[in-house]
């Protein structure tokens, strides 16, 4: 059944409807090597179906089906209509959607090598070599994974959207776990912590990671951490490497600027936000160096697309400009409430979930200089790399992160390796203390693969570009 047929069927029965078809193929290769054996795994999955969201007399209804015959799709559409009717009977407020121009077209990820064209044996061997290289000395186990996904989407709406998109996503990571004689463990990951290794692109992105070339450093650092002192405690200058800045942006800038959280529609799982609509245009989010942009056109980012899941075209939207909070991540419905246009962020994790306001690629603009310049300019502080734990309150203010390793910096030099470094703070105060961000040569676009939001839970890959940055007088300590 063509999606346009069901949209035409829905048109006279509701104020607005969108019908979204998705077909996602995923292949996962996972190598788990230990000194005393292997436990590798390969899997292949395909999920496809249709999600239908309709706007009834007052409010929404959403239904989905994995069955693609005409009867099942029509039955699914009827269920969405029934839900909207049932909810509208008890509703007080009428959801308003602004008019918009029709959208037609297609989007496709640019790739050089389709990972599905690489024989599975080759992909396993690609991960097997670094695993073997890692298993020396006190490295007890090594784990690597390479995931590849091909996602086809089509969205057709009653107000003139008909767009098709084909995405290629991936993720690749390796971890070494070192164990000492007493059974204490320390771990190191590359290219960064597992969970921040997502990208949009082909197999060439995996090859470019040069995992094998990083094994020696990974192994030696994991072993050195076993004997390293704990991170010093106190209020010190803090330098974060770029993937940790990316996570900091994610938790303390991305989530609080989601307009659905600001309004309170995500209370049941993710929580709210310390921001409100009145703060837009005046609230000091950070120092003058802090400029943050939601960018859904950045090449290679997990949050890059042609159109979001309600048909708003991709674009670039400043959220924080030179320290001042200027805009939200929003949808057509939420933006209209504050008299603005959608910033195009509605995405669903699959056909079986309703679209939500989601981060696209929310990135911190680079500044100037190299990481080595920044370290040389720091009298006493800690340089922290690769996240280990993360926690932030439901308003996105009070946070605490710990990292895999740190370097204590004394008089502009890496003085000693320290283990279990941890830092904490409060969002606006922390970003106000940012006094240096490294330049474009240190900037990297990372991808967080499993951002959780929604109820039922949805996991989504989102992008964050960042360069290493320094924050003054931050509370640091040990985990």
């Amino acid at each position, binding site marked *: 059944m063509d999606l346009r047929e069901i949209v035409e069927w829905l048109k006279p029965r509701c104020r607005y409807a969108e019908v979204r078809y998705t077909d996602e193929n995923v292949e996962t290769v996972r190598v788990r090597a230990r000194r005393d054996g292997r436990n590798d795994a390969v899997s292949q999955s395909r999920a496809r179906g249709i999600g239908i969201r309709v706007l009834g007399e007052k409010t929404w209804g959403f239904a989905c089906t994995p069955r693609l015959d005409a009867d099942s799709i029509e039955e699914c559409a009827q269920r969405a209509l029934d839900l909207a009717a049932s909810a509208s009977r008890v509703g007080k407020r009428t959801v308003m959607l602004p008019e918009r121009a029709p959208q037609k077209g297609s989007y496709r990820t640019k790739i050089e090598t389709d990972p599905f064209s690489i024989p599975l044996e080759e992909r396993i061997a690609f991960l097997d070599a670094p695993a073997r290289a890692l298993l020396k000395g006190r490295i007890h186990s090594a784990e690597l994974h390479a995931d590849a996904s091909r996602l086809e989407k089509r969205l057709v709406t009653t107000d003139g959207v008909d767009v098709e998109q084909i995405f290629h996503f991936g993720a690749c990571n390796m971890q070494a776990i070192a164990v000492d004689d007493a059974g204490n463990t320390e771990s190191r990951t590359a290219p960064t912590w597992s969970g921040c290794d997502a990208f949009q692109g082909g197999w060439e992105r995996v090859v470019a990671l040069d995992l094998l070339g990083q094994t020696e450093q990974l192994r030696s650092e994991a072993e050195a951490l076993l004997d390293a002192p704990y991170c010093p405690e106190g209020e010190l200058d803090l330098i974060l490497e770029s993937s940790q800045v990316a996570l900091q942006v994610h938790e303390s800038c991305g989530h609080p600027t989601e307009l659905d959280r600001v309004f309170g529609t995500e209370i049941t799982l993710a929580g709210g936000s310390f921001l409100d609509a009145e703060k837009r245009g005046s609230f000091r989010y950070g120092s003058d160096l802090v400029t943050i942009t939601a960018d859904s056109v950045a090449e290679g980012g997990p949050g890059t697309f042609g159109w979001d899941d309600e048909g708003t075209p991709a674009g670039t939207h400043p959220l924080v400009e030179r320290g001042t909070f200027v805009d939200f991540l929003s949808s057509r419905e939420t933006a209209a409430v504050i008299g603005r246009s959608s910033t195009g962020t509605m995405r669903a994790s699959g056909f079986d979930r309703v679209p939500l306001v989601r981060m696209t690629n929310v990135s911190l603009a680079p500044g100037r200089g190299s990481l080595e310049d920044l370290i040389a300019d720091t009298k006493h502080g800690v340089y922290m790399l690769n996240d280990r734990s993360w926690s932030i309150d439901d308003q996105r203010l009070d946070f605490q992160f710990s990292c895999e390793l740190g370097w204590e910096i004394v008089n502009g030099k890496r003085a000693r390796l320290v283990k*279990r470094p941890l830092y904490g703070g409060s969002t606006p105060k922390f970003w106000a203390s940012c006094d240096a961000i490294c330049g474009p040569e240190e900037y990297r676009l990372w991808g967080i693969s499993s951002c959780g939001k929604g109820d039922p839970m949805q996991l989504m890959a989102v992008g964050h570009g960042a360069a290493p940055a320094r924050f003054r007088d931050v509370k640091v300590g040990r985990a």
Partner: protein
Amino acid sequence: MNLLDLCRDVTKAAPEETEVWIRRDRRGCARFSLSELSQPMDLDTIEARVRVARGRRVAEVVTTDLDDLRNAVGRATALAKVAPEIEGFEGFAGADAVSTSSRSPGDISADARTEKVAAIIARIDREGFASAGMIETETHALAIATSRGAARSHEDGSAELRVWALEDAAGRGASGHGSHLVRQLQELAVERETEAAIRAAKDGKGPGRFESGPCDIVMEPVAVAELLEWLGTIAFPAPEVEAGTSAMSNRFGQSITGAHISIRESPLDSLADPFDREATTRRAIDLIRNGIAMEPLTDRASAQKRRSASTGSAIPTALFSPGGIAGVALSIDAGAHATAKSSDELVNGLDRGLYVRRLHYVNGFLDPQRAMMTGMSRDGCFAVERGRVVRPVKNVRFTDSFLEMLARSDGATAERSLVRSSWTTGGTLDVPALRFRNVLLTSS
């Protein structure tokens, strides 16, 4: 054709050793916020998992299309030729795993959910608060068959309420929370939980600050459940134990928490399905008995390596469970300390401390070997002086070892509450309210 017959037919026709697992879910969600039923959803989903084994080489193919099952077997057969060997794998479940069971889920209609949500919104409106929450009903059918003769199916369902009363719709002011998880919609204690949420929101207005440092805390079961779920993830699955990162690694038979604490996987007392992802019957397991580390959770392959029987803990690969092993019915038994009739009685035993109703964003990756965790309070945090709640306080952060906190606990309610797992489908946690001594508060 029913799901079990389909599983059987596909495995019979398969050329290699094959296992077919199918789960069909129907979830009705009445999600409300801003005092409106804003996200009504009807989620109809199917997941089929086909595993084919060639010796110890095992490959898995997942599909949402039941018409594609035979092709899925073909793809898995091809994958299995190149798949790595699974250590300890000795074949799929055999003919001893045969059963059919079902339980009625009760009324699951959208109108029934809407009616209850409308009543909640109206009640909370009358108090001048905003409301948010969700009523969810779910039914599911599960079937598994293997070419060695295993054939099991089960149908079940549950209903859950989560409700918030909010001074500010976005949670920037006082908030109160209530929740209830049962098998049938009509069993939900809607009124009781709504009133609890309203009471906590009223009591939480105008919070002051609370000093960081060691503090005695009484936590409600929902808060304790979040800590237990993290412990279940980082400590109990066999892969974590083997990697050396678990608090149980190399410590079986040793004391790892207080002698009054026992932690069990108790599937028979929960909403868990009667068998796991591999058709193994779920059974009660002592993970920690009287403070002593007893045994990890296993699937068939990891149990084989330990020369023991599977604990029936195989789950479909899920968030934070790449090993596919997890508890689905963890419970805490505080032994002789579990005598309090209510959390109020536990509060009575505090000279100075905190009463915490709920936690937010707990993370247990700080130091998994010590079960070191951090998190924030949420939806009600109150100062206690001389055994009485005296004032609301702003949310606090704690950073402490959960196993050490349990060792320092000296009071628990006799009654436990069933709380829905955030990470495992159909999983639950059965926990009391607990009184912890000297928990480290580390707010910024």
